[in-house]
């Protein structure tokens, strides 16, 4: 019986789940190949059995095992991309590799191949109030994040990343501890390596990011004025385009659905504003308009 059809009990870290590939149905003309790709909570480890080395997928967290069949598409579409974002980034490269190999095989013989992404996730783990899948979601390339503008200059806007869209955050708020419950005072790597005064300023520290002027919108990039796109305090929906350097992620809002989602009028002194088009927001009780790079709300 194929591994993906089996019924698994609760997996614990170190439990062997399945090989990296196995042979499926066989007829006279073709041999089906089933490939397993590690997703969240699963890793590809080398084991030595009786002097022989073999690779196997191993669970790395406690939870239920899931097999997700990957539908193969020759041209990646928008849908495909968002699916990738949703489940895994790390194994993306392997996936692509798998696809390529698969394509080659397709051309050569008619060997059908199935690809399954194997994940282990615990639905009850996330601090026990959230029902969505919890994994330690750190921002990575392609993730959509919600961020708050902390300062602006003519070249860029600095932001702090508050949350990943559609992902829960750890109890101690690895991504942005501002406003996400109780934090650990004095804890953390900063506290261990730095003097108290420095660490104190970093309490509630978050992952930081930069939206540079050329990444604000997709068209007319040279004429972007940060002042007319963001103001400090705005909440922005942005996409991570690179892990950046030691301190900042690089973010982009160059898409219709990305940009300012919440903003207050008069630099934070007034009330909430609403977008009336992609570059204007209006404060309903005063009627004043301010310019922003807005996200398409629906």
């Amino acid at each position, binding site marked *: 019986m194929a591994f993906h059809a089996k019924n698994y009990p609760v997996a614990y870290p*170190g439990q062997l789940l399945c090989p990296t590939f196995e042979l499926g149905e066989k007829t006279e003309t073709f041999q089906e190949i089933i490939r397993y790709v590690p997703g969240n909570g699963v890793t590809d480890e080398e084991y030595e059995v009786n002097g022989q080395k073999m690779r196997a997928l*191993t669970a790395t*967290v406690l939870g239920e095992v899931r097999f997700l069949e990957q539908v193969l598409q020759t041209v990646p579409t928008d849908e495909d991309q968002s699916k990738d974002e949703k489940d895994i980034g790390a194994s993306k490269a392997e996936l692509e590799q798998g696809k390529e190999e698969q394509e080659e095989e397709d051309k050569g013989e008619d060997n059908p191949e199935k690809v399954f992404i194997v994940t282990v996730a*615990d639905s009850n*783990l996330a601090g026990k109030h959230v029902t969505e899948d919890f994994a330690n979601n750190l921002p990575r390339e392609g993730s959509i994040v919600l961020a708050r503008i902390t300062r602006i200059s003519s070249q860029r806007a600095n932001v702090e990343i508050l949350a990943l869209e559609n992902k829960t955050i750890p109890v101690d708020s*690895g991504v942005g501890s501002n406003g996400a419950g109780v934090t650990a005072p004095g804890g953390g790597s900063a506290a261990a390596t730095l003097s108290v005064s*420095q660490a104190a300023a970093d309490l509630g520290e978050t992952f930081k990011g930069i939206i540079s002027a050329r990444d604000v919108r997709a068209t007319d990039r040279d004429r972007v004025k940060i002042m007319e796109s963001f103001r400090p305090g705005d909440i922005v929906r942005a996409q991570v385009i690179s892990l950046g350097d*030691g301190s900042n992620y690089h973010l982009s809002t160059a898409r219709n659905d990305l940009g300012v989602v919440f903003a207050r009028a008069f630099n934070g002194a007034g009330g909430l504003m609403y977008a009336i088009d992609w570059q204007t927001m209006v404060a309903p009780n005063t009627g004043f308009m301010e310019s922003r790079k807005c996200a398409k709300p629906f």
Partner: protein
Amino acid sequence: MLNTTDRRRILGPANAKPLVFDRSSVPVEENQESAKKSSVSTGNDAIYIENGIVVNCNGSSYLEVRSRTNDKNCTLLLTSIYGPRPSRGAFNAKATLSVQFKEVTLEKIAAGQIKEICTFLTNVFNAVVNLERYPKSGIDVFLSLIHSSSGQQDFELESIITACVNGITLAFVDAGIEILDTVSAGMYKRNVTAFMKNGTEVVGFWKDDDEQSSSENILEIVEKCKEHYLTNRKTMIEFMVRNKNASD
């Protein structure tokens, strides 16, 4: 950062009082309930495990281990894990792990020796945590030794280290941080060995006495430690799985 003052917050007037909301009582009860659920005593009476009792950290574990040599002696250890959270400085494609050890009641262990334990444990878990998954971040492990052996000066470093390894693994599982295996340690006399992959790989070895130190005897020690490791690992996995099923 040159300027250490926090410019992100508008602090308001000096006499301002922060707005405090009553915490609704529902989640509190829920917590107690879940804590109760997790305090399942394990089949092996030598170890008592509890998970998730520190609420503001990402994962935690509490261990009570009865000494194998003296029934009255007991090691109580609380482990809490914070992170992954942003690290500073140069870009790092992997997470950085740090382990801090502290005796919260009687301080019996010399400061230098505590540092040795910390670097030893960091080395063990560097090989175990799937650090690639967490770029640009730091994971912090805090160990609080609540009690070890009796007496003013006396402590068993071996049982403490064994408890530390097991406690950290359980806390990582509780935090949902990816680890390559349910790593556990076993001890024999004054030797501790931490294993992974069902005892085929050693991730940590600690020997503090001169006995049986020749190359043939080492393997014997490792084998003896492995026996203890296998029972420890079994207890831990049983606990995890039972706990998981109970919470479903």
